[in-house]
């Protein structure tokens, strides 16, 4: 807890939360504009399923980039000021430092996810969606997004901590965003190896084109469970490997 509060203290004046909020606002405004256009063209689409499906696929583009930026800002301050030796000689432990940074980045991304959930509900109510708020779908959407975020944060943190030049980490984030957005175009066998594809992969609603029309299908929890387990195991593996690797690097 002390390490996390220290991380938050060190982020003072960095305006990281403000940046994350701006990023979130841009994404949400973009999504809502796109959804409004779709609804005005075909009012049959007006429903929670469409909203969740579109947000999931847009998350594939936006959240990897946001995660890369957040993690990079959190890790880069140690590289810039050569502060690792300061922290380590003040008897901070490398593994707890790594964990504190991971949790801090996760908290920021978690806040963004919850805000998305609230924005979805607000948008649906404001647009007079007929069905009641689908709390079950929303919860599953949030779980999928949070798990994918946490795995991506583990990947980004490993790169941001081990390679001083943050261009690598940010480029990876952008490549991730591209893959995340185009994930549905890859065959399943290829797709499952990319962590960024799990925003849509774990989404409770999928889109499919049949007879030139988009259909939104709800996935049941059981069919998503194996992918979820794979993602969590991969995330833990990446986190531990990164933490051990960075701990062994000399200052």
């Amino acid at each position, binding site marked *: 807890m002390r390490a996390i509060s220290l991380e938050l*203290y060190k982020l003072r*004046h960095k305006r990281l939360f403000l940046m994350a909020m701006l990023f979130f606002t841009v994404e949400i405004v973009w999504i809502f504009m796109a959804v409004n256009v779709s609804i005005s063209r075909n009012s049959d689409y007006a429903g929670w399923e469409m909203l969740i499906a579109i947000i999931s696929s847009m998350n594939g583009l936006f959240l990897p980039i946001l995660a890369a930026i957040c993690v990079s800002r959190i890790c880069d301050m140690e590289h810039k000021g050569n*502060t690792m030796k300061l922290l380590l000689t003040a008897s901070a432990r490398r593994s707890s430092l790594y964990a504190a940074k991971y949790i801090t980045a996760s908290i920021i991304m978690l806040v963004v996810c919850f805000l998305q959930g609230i924005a979805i509900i607000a948008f649906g109510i404001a647009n007079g969606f007929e069905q009641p708020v689908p709390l079950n779908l929303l919860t599953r959407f949030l779980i999928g997004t949070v798990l994918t975020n946490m795995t991506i944060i583990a990947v980004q943190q490993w790169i941001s901590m081990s390679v001083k030049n943050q261009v690598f980490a940010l480029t990876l984030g952008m490549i991730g965003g591209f893959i995340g957005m185009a994930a549905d175009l890859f065959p399943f066998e290829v797709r499952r190896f990319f962590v960024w594809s799990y925003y849509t992969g774990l989404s409770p609603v999928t889109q499919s084109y049949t007879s030139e029309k988009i259909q939104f299908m709800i996935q049941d929890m059981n069919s998503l469970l194996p992918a979820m387990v794979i993602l969590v195991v991969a995330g833990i593996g990446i986190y531990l490997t990164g933490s051990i690797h960075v701990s062994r690097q000399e200052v």
Partner: protein
Amino acid sequence: MNQIISTYNLSKRYGKTYRVKNVNLTVNEGEIYGFLGPNGAGKSTTLKMILGLARPTEGKVTVFGKDLEANRPFILNQTGSLIESPSYYAHLTGLENMRVVQRLRNVPDKNVMEALKIVRLDKQKDKKVGQYSLGMKQRLGIAMALLSFPKLLVLDEPTNGLDPAGISEIRELIKSLPQRYEMTVLISSHLLSEIELMATSVGIINDGRMMFQGSMEELKNKNRPTIMLKTQNNKLAQELLFYKGFPSMQQDEFLVFENMTDEQVANANRTLVSANIDVVRIEERKKNLESIFMDITGKERSL
């Protein structure tokens, strides 16, 4: 006297080359130990190993009589350090940087203010460190090292980037620490003049090897004058004087004698003249500390 730091055959290898080789360094309680050496001699690597920032390839470090590997948190809690360039968060103010270390070290507020006052940053504490000059960053680094008023202070080239007034101020501060706060100070530098003015003990390292270790007095004692003597036949003169009890070494065109009194010089001269060996030069040469240092570390290396 209690040994605060001792290293045993401390070595560090990067690839195939040893950056530090078999260094046995001993720092006693209450000392200001000057760790001297040219750039790249292995000073920072040695200090990093003493602080547990780098793992030794071979050898052992004990601090406060305890093995570093097994007692790292205990040792680091009582040690303040500044290694190489100062560490800081440029986006935070000086005071906030101090607070980061305060949280890690768990020390009271008054320490923060006192440490800032000691390095004269108390009036600049609310400025962002990114806007500090190099000298101010260095002072902040020293304040962070002093924050917990530790028993041991390890400073790696602390006067880098300071102007002459700043250097003398920091020097006076370091000199006062053992008495004022009962600290032991290990300070490294590539400038002999700097160490000469404050250290009580000295270690000289070159190419990763300890070339000299002892008190400042011992180092200064090497500062003895030598007599240089040139004759028409140096070889014969050397042999003759050796039998008379004046051993010498040949250096260029001179015979070099150490520890000779005026009387002995006159005596040697008389012996040579009576043996028909013409004496063409008798010179006294004094070595200053700089040239002793150069002798120890090798002249061809730049400092």
